């Protein structure tokens, strides 16, 4: 069942993105930025945690989960140490994604040549 939920949720988010892309003049960059802000908004009211409980990995894969884990990490340490905690903890949950993307992109650009 969780597999079906993952499929439906991730597909649905992508469908909304495609809907925006087809019907407006926004570029993919605009759409991804919009979705990150949306994910941050949903998490600041605790809604995104419910979504993850129901839809499992399907909710962790779209870029909305990037905004979710930024707010989540910031709030986790912000509750203990106030405004400074927001700054300290913001990347604590997303660092794995960003750092590995940077490292992998750097070494692949050394190894491979651009094709076009």
């Amino acid at each position, binding site marked *: 069942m969780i597999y079906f939920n993952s*499929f439906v949720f991730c597909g649905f988010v992508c469908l909304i993105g495609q809907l925006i892309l*087809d019907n407006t003049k926004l570029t993919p960059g605009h759409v991804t*930025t919009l979705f990150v802000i949306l994910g*941050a908004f949903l998490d600041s009211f605790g809604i995104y945690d419910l979504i993850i409980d129901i839809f499992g990995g*399907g909710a962790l*894969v779209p870029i909305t989960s990037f905004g979710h884990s930024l707010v989540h990490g910031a709030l986790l340490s912000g509750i203990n140490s106030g405004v400074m905690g927001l700054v300290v903890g913001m990347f604590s949950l997303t660092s794995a994604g960003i750092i590995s993307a940077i490292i992998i992109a750097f070494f692949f650009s050394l190894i491979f040549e651009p094709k076009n």
Partner: protein
Amino acid sequence: MTNKEYSNLVKKHTPKVNHIKSMSLAFFVGGFIGLAGQFLIDFYVKILNVSISNASTYMIVTLIFISSLFTALGFFDKIIEKVRCGIIIPITGFAHAMTSAALEYRKEGFVLGLGSNIFKLTGSVILYGVISAYIFGLIRLFVIGA
């Protein structure tokens, strides 16, 4: 040429999008990536005996590695042209944007090319993610209460 004539001309030459086809393609490809994400989480929990939160970190890193590899090998761009949001919205699009910027600008030098342009496409995601997370975090801490 009046404005009306011009907008008619623009409309005539804009390529027509088949909305049903592009939307269902985005739905099925995006859904399949979500399914793969859940499958990878279960796989890592079973094989490596780690907690679910660690397994989801491994899952994200795996997806980033696969999509960076496909981008570097050169056939990911063609798939993205067809599928668009089905791949751009999942974390694969983030990795694709970063790797393609790195590949493209490396020939202009390591500092002024690669170094200053690697975040060219993903910078807006990180910037506005951080700004919105800061503002929403402040609101949550001081207005609503933790």
